[in-house]
């Protein structure tokens, strides 16, 4: 039997901020719930102008979403419909971490957010998958008032790690890469609004998917309507990674995964110099990783047996077929290159575009 507990909002209206000239707003509320029989329900009050919400949870055990119920009492998401399938909709249904992020709706077809009380059932399980009762889950609910799913801006706080911001070639390359990112997003009505700053954050960046207290501390200083991107030299002591998104989707509040990290060294290549092609790919990498952070999966994983939940990205089943059908897609898992050159990857499908516009941080 699953008991339902109501979210008690501890500090309503912690932040109400208007962004831009279209009066889009983001509202943040915080509270906590305690599980009974392993689950607890978070109620989200949605008014007539709110169009998307995000729940960020931080629990004592592994946290995931079991079910989402709309104000009419209809179940619009059930975890068992998606887990173990070959289709990725959201990481929120997987109990992989004590930190969980849900953005709803994900796609246009996942029902418009209608006014009323939405109920989101969270579960707490241990590492063996057993439900845990009496488990406290801190919850942050953010809702956005922005019904324009054709135009939106995403605020990005770009932080240079220690010493990196002082390297003129890196700053120039990042500036050019950001211009490339803007070009990629422009046809889809999206604009990254990037502010940059230097810091004393270690240039050997942590891997955000594993959680990092340093990321948490840094993001505590970010506004709650902006994503944080950190540019360093290496990631987890390695150049294996050029960029990593903390989660799919990532949160707008501070947790240990709430950043996208980018390695400049991996992006500059063996000569350590940003050639024009390197800058093109750098811009695509930033747009790709932020795309993950805003909820996009690869349209097909490299096994060629797992796909995203977008109906308009073909479920191809071999490398050749996938390169042919999706090779220019921004979220394709690999660049399409031939040793000394790569094709541009800057396309998004309509459903992918809709996912980005429904991200709560897109205002």
């Amino acid at each position: 039997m699953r008991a339902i507990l109501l979210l008690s909002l501890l500090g309503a209206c912690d932040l109400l901020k208007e962004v831009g000239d279209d009066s889009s707003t983001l509202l943040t509320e915080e509270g906590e719930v305690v599980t009974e029989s392993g689950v607890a329900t978070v109620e989200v009050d949605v008014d007539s102008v709110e169009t998307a919400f995000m729940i960020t949870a931080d629990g004592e055990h592994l946290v995931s979403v079991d079910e989402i119920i709309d104000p009419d009492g209809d179940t619009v998401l059930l975890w068992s419909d998606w887990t173990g399938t070959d289709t990725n909709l959201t990481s929120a249904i997987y109990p992989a971490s004590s930190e969980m992020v849900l953005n709803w709706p994900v796609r246009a077809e996942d029902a418009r957010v209608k006014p009323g009380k939405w109920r989101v059932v969270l579960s707490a399980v241990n590492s063996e998958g057993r439900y845990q009762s009496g488990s406290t889950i801190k919850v942050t609910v953010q809702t956005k008032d922005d019904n324009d799913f054709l135009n939106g801006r995403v605020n990005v706080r770009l932080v240079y790690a220690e010493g990196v911001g002082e390297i003129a070639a890196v700053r120039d390359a990042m500036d050019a890469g950001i211009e490339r990112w803007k070009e990629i997003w422009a046809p889809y009505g999206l604009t990254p609004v990037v502010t940059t700053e230097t810091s004393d954050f270690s240039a050997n960046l942590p891997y955000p998917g594993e959680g990092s207290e340093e990321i948490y501390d840094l993001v505590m200083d970010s506004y709650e309507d902006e994503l944080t991107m950190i540019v360093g030299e290496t990631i987890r002591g390695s150049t294996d990674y050029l960029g990593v998104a903390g989660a799919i989707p990532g949160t707008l509040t501070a947790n240990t995964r709430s950043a996208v990290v980018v390695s400049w060294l991996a992006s500059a290549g063996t000569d350590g110099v940003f050639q024009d092609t390197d800058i093109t790919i750098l811009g695509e990498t930033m747009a790709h990783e932020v795309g993950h952070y805003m909820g996009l999966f690869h349209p097909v994983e490299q096994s060629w047996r797992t796909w995203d939940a977008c109906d308009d990205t073909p479920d191809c089943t071999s490398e050749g077929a996938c390169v042919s059908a999706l090779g220019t897609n921004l979220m394709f898992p690999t660049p399409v290159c031939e040793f000394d050159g790569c094709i541009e990857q800057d396309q998004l499908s309509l459903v992918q575009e809709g996912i980005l516009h429904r991200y709560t941080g897109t205002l």
Partner: protein
Amino acid sequence: MITTLLLLSGMAEATTPIVRPKPTAEQRALYDALKVRDDGPSCEALAALSQDIASDLIWIVDHATQPPWAGIRAARCILSDHLEAKATDIDAWVVDPSKKGLALLTLSMLDEVPEPAAVRFATLALDGPLADDARSRLVDSVHPAVANLAAPTAAPVVPQEPKTDVIED
């Protein structure tokens, strides 16, 4: 006539195609594994793709310029798994400004290699054109010998002339 011949020879030279070395099947497989955008392959996984992995990784470093991380990832596996066999290649990386990315990668990994090798590469780097980049990255090395090499040297003591009072008449 001479002019015509010169023109023709110039055209012949201009249209000569640049022959790109053709990868073997194993080099191709390595490249395909290395070029992914997100999590790269492990060195162990790469080793399974080639009978002569060290040399094939060097081939990737030398010939795969795009995506930029392919050669960097290959170099990382050389540094972690084939340090002795390819030491002379690595020697060249740390002193060649046209391979600065490889040099910075090597310097960032010196804490993970045995101290004698770390000292060898650090010494070369600190004596070469990339010394400034090397010094800032090596001064906190876990290898005491490397850290000592990179430590700022005390300013040489310049003997000064004894000060003499000037007496003006």
